[in-house]
């Protein structure tokens, strides 16, 4: 972990009260409803949550890749609100200063184009490199991503690469323009367990060397514990708890975070304890009832939990939660 040095650094991305709502036939889906977080230079931030908790939509909203316009909130990148930028200006930032790696490497490369064509696309678009220079840079990135015989492999097609290799290509592609932020949307979920660790190591290694900040979206607490400086636990489109990774693991505040940690086996505990699952299902995001969305599954729910969503309670530097169990901070 790059640790404490990054935490004090300057904020390069500030997401403030982000709301992404979708109008569907079933009703209004508040996929992301009031998410705020800051990302500092060189920091690795984990977004953790179950499927449907709004992690991916948050990531796509940052880059303006969702179809419907934001229902509210601001995405400040170096003080510039990305959600109000004209399309062309936003396209200039995508891939160049904020890059993204997607979940499934099998489908996120175009099967009809050579890897070289796809890798050079961003370089030609953003860095105004000539074909030769772009190709050289692409080969260099592939080598950095640990692809052997990159000069030869670059002219092959995606189907000639294995899943892990493709994710390496995706990472190399995303980092080729030297972005300030890399958004990795569950980069290891579609891969074998053995490959997962390699890919995470690669992301960590490359981004640290290049000074890239990372937003790592995952549903695995283990991944977060191993790689992230700080984390945000998301539930039903909201952030339940946020804080430095060590702090949150040592002293989880929100009952949901506590439940998540209890449901994961740990190697660093002496006696094998029973894993405790969280009862129930995440609520449907269609017409979510008022109050804390977790109250139906929470064993410490109170009357107030069903009525109003709690404000933030601060528990330490950078560590806060939204739960009625704790006194609201002024």
């Amino acid at each position, binding site marked *: 972990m790059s640790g404490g040095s990054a935490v004090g650094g300057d904020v390069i991305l500030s997401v403030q009260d982000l709301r992404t709502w979708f109008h569907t036939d079933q009703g209004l889906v508040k996929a992301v409803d009031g998410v705020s977080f800051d990302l500092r230079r060189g920091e690795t931030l984990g977004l953790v949550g179950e499927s449907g908790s709004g992690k991916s939509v948050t990531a796509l909203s940052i*880059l303006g*890749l969702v179809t419907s316009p934001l229902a509210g909130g601001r995405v400040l990148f170096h003080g510039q609100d990305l959600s109000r930028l004209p399309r*062309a200006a936003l*396209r*200039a*930032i*995508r*891939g*160049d200063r904020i*890059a*993204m790696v*997607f*979940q*499934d490497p099998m*489908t*996120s*490369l*175009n*099967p*009809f*184009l*050579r890897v070289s064509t796809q890798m050079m*696309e*961003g370089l030609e*678009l*953003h860095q105004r490199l000539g074909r030769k220079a772009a190709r050289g840079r692409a080969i*260099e990135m592939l*080598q*950095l*991503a*640990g*692809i*052997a*015989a990159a000069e030869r*492999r670059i002219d*092959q*097609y995606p*189907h*000639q690469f294995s899943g*892990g*290799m493709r994710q390496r290509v*995706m990472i190399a*592609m995303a980092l080729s323009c*030297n972005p300030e932020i890399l958004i990795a949307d569950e980069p290891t979920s579609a891969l074998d367990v053995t490959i997962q660790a*390699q890919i995470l190591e*690669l992301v960590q*290694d490359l981004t640290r*060397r*290049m000074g890239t900040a990372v937003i790592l979206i995952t549903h695995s607490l283990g991944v977060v514990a191993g790689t992230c400086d700080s984390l945000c636990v998301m539930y039903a489109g909201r952030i339940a708890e946020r804080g430095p990774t060590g702090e949150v693991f040592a002293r989880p505040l929100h009952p949901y975070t506590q439940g998540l940690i209890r449901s994961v086996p740990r190697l660093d505990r002496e006696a094998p304890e029973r894993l405790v699952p969280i009862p129930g299902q995440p609520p449907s995001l269609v017409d979510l009832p008022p109050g804390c969305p977790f109250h139906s599954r929470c064993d410490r729910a109170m009357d107030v939990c069903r009525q109003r969503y709690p404000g933030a309670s601060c528990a330490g530097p950078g560590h806060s939660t939204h739960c009625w169990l704790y006194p609201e901070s002024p």
Partner: protein
Amino acid sequence: MQPLPLTPLDAPEPAALPGGSPWADAWRRLRRNRMASASLAVIALYALLTLGAPLLPVHPYAEQVVAHKNLPPSLRPAGELMLEARSAYLARLAAAEARPGLDAREEAELGSMARAVRTDPVHRRHYLLGTDNLGRDMLSRLLYGGRVSILIGLVGTLTSMVLGIVLGSLAGYHGGHLDNVIMRCVDILYGLPYMLLVIILMALFGRSVVNLFVALALISWLTLCRVVRGQVMSLKHAEFVEAARAMGAGPGRIIFRHLTPNTLGVIVVFSTLMVPQFIMAESFLSFLGLGVSAPLASWGSLVAEGAGVMSLYPWQLLGPAVAMTVFLFAMNFLGDGLRDALDPQSRAQP
């Protein structure tokens, strides 16, 4: 940043997988298909012969040698055939009039004709496929007619490809109002009777090859537009499109760099099967007298001319009919082969 190469984490990669580009794979499968390869060879031969027609030692297609009218296909020089045909005719005439032999005037005519055959070099011509009713070389007319027919097939297909791909991609990718406008235009044009429209256009703007091209192309992009639109709609939510957008690619780049190559398989198959349709349409129009105008020929106009005299001079019909049929067969077989080669469903097969 320091370029510090990591040590590769993977084991030495396996030997390069067979194939490579999806196009190379398709080409391999196509070559393994015997009918399709044979068709490809036939089409190549046609292309070579028709494109190279000016270089071939054939008589000019428009040159009339009236003395040589309606000669049958033969390897012998035209003069001999002409003399034979004339004497046979005169003999039949004499027999019909119940005379024992030719009279003096007829003998004299044959004599002067025989002299002309010996002296005039024009009578030493050979007509491998015979001549038409104005004494024009059928082989030459067939080659130049093929040029027009194939050109109409290709230009029509290309035009409808460009229109269909561009409009179909735009409609499919953007959706919304643009999609509505484009597709309603397609629906309206679909509703009009195709041939009637072409005939009206030809009648309005006059008979010329260019007008024929325009008339056919204007109508023919409709189906392709729908096909491309459907393909693009199903592909535009693919993750690689999202990835390209996240890379900062604009709509133009995504449509023409990322989506079109993925739809090209369907388009190629569709277009191959469209070439025969164009040739048929042109032939039909020529048959009706709305196609190319004389002395220019097309397979359709040749068939139309030949059909009128098919009981007397069958070669005038057979030549163009066979030439056209073989070409259309080859195109259709090639289209079928291409569909098999480019179909992702058959990709798993060896």
